[in-house]
């Protein structure tokens, strides 16, 4: 079993399904000969040919709209949007069609497609290449929004996304595309699409996050452990539909919760989680549920981007306040 990075695991999952599913095709800008600007689709065109791995003209509205049309014919397009910052031209197609086609036709037609997009900051990229706007997608009924945080979960969640009969937006935390690697077997095993993953168990504080921020969250959990604080670390993984039960169960136990995400806090996914937790765990809460997020401003250019994103220090600072609350 070889060690793979997340981007390699994604490539492996795409290759696995291209081989398994004759109706699957990979499409997008520069996904073919070039193998994707992050190499996520590297060699797929060589292996599966230009019919299955297709370079498109530069038009995101059309990429997603055409994928929808393909899906109505029983194809399973996996379309790449080069960066999440360029998904906005496709919002109309995602909101008005991908998410609605099954409902609109009472099941006569459906939309089994996947939109892949690298997202998040920290790679010192130019403007618009560092966004985390998963909240915009999570608010759209009928879509699934999935975010892996490790190579193995990337492989298994992408398989699940591709096999799911409904439209899935698969957001890839590009900051950790190559940061971590782990053994990934090409066993074709998929994970369920709407469950959180509990990465650490603990009784004192629940740390909730997803995507690349899982790295900082785990580091924070480590140093809290050294202070004798037991953290339960939960990777939300599917921000919509959300697995509320796992989150509620954990916070009912710990009584303290901290939500960490890169996106701006205002109307971010963290707000939904905090709102849900206080509704269901109020009597168990020993402290307010807090959020450590990107600031409510434009993600700065590379010189200051790390200042914008939650750091281990910021997480620990707020964690201390949560732990000290009422003491």
């Amino acid at each position, binding site marked *: 079993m070889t060690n793979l990075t997340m981007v390699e695991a994604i490539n492996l999952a795409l290759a696995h399904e291209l081989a398994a599913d004759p109706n699957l*095709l990979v499409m997008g800008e520069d996904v073919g000969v070039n193998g994707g600007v992050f190499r996520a689709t590297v060699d797929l065109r060589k292996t599966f040919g230009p*019919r299955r791995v297709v370079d*498109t*003209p530069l*038009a995101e*509205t*059309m990429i*997603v*709209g*055409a*994928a*929808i*049309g*393909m*899906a*109505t*014919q*029983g*194809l399973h*397009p996996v379309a790449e949007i080069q960066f999440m910052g360029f998904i906005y031209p496709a919002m*109309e*197609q995602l909101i*008005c*069609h991908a998410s609605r*086609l*099954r*409902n*609109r*036709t*009472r*099941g*006569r*037609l*459906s939309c089994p497609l996947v939109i892949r997009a690298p997202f998040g900051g920290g790679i010192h990229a130019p403007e618009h290449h560092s966004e985390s706007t998963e909240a915009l997608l999570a608010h759209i*009924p*009928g879509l*699934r929004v999935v975010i892996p945080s490790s190579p193995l979960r990337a492989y298994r969640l992408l398989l699940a996304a591709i096999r*799911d*009969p*409904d439209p899935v937006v698969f957001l890839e935390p590009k900051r950790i595309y190559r940061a971590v690697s782990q053994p990934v077997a090409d066993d074709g095993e998929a994970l369920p699409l*709407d469950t959180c993953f509990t990465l650490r168990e603990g009784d004192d504080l629940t740390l909730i996050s997803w995507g690349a921020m899982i790295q900082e969250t785990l580091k924070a959990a480590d140093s809290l452990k050294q202070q004798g604080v037991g953290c339960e670390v939960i990777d939300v993984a599917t921000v919509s*539909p*959300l*697995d*509320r*039960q796992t989150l509620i169960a954990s916070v009912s136990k710990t009584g303290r919760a901290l939500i960490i995400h890169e996106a701006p806090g205002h109307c971010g996914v963290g707000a939904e989680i905090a709102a849900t937790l206080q509704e269901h765990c109020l009597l168990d809460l020993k402290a307010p549920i807090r959020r450590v997020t990107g600031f409510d401003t434009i993600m700065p250019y590379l010189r200051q981007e790390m200042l914008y994103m939650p750091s281990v220090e910021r997480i620990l600072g707020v964690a201390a306040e949560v732990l000290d609350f009422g003491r």
Partner: protein
Amino acid sequence: MKKIYEFRIESRRFINSAGKVIATLPEGYDAGLLRQAYEHMVLIRAFDQKAIALQRTGKIGTYPSILGHEAISIAAGMALRKDDVFVPYYRDLGTQYLRGVRLVEQLLYWGGDERGSCFAAQKEDLPICVPIATQFCHAAGVASAIRFRQQPRAVLVSGGDGSTSKGDFLESLNLAGAWQLPLVFLIANNQWAISTPRYLQCHAETLAQKAIGAGIAGVQVDGNDFVAVHDSLTQALEKARTGQGPTLVEAITYRLGDHTTADDASRYRSQDELKKAWDEEPVKRLRTCLAHQNAWSEAEEKALLTRCKTQVEQVVSDYLNTPPAAPTAMFDYLYARLPADLQPQYDHLKAIRPEAGHD
């Protein structure tokens, strides 16, 4: 040093507004075919008028009349083969009817019931599309799937003159050219986008010439001339089926009614203009043409109108007798399987249904 590239757009018409044949008809346009077209056109006009009446009496919601689009709408339906795919916009009553979409489904749709897009007798065609121009991208995708499978089928997608100003129309046109898709774009140029006249929409002499920028064929036809529309679409669709690439067909007509029942066109256009447009209208034109050939009589007209009336009445009573959908239907088709996270909302809706049902 100069190099010159040249392009041409043809505008076609066979039957003039007086119903006179002004160019030799292509083969096959005998009285039989024209009578068939005429009968379809009269039926959908009858249905259209009834639908407007139903809206006025609150039996359906906002409705967009196809008055003036009958030739385009029926020609498209007749030019398509059963195994082609049609991707409509919201003013395609006639085409959808000939594709097997039942008229009662039209009333359900405009009456605010999602079951109107179930299409019991039409599995592949897309449902009515409301967000302008978004349907062109879907059509490009359907055509890509057909090319992917190398099937001898074509896709027809339609939109209005206004829709040609929106980016996704042009992105789809461009993809159709780049990928040589089996796709025909039909633009029903009825001179108005709600209150926006054609000339404010675009400075080009024709909308057909938008094809040039995508490197595909474009043609303009008289949209009130059934033969011109049908012949051009038949050729374009055959080209598409046989791998000879996409075509843009601009059909010139006039929106004789209000934009929808929620609109009042008298606010923004003159009675004069409307009167002139009526002289061009497609139904009378085809009837006169048939009459000139002694292929249509007063008696036949009478009989047809009665047949249409009964058929439409039947549709209306079927519509009015359709039992309402279950409230929980709003969850039943959101995903293939209801996610656990939504179960409580589903249950809550079921619980409150009785008292909240009054609407």
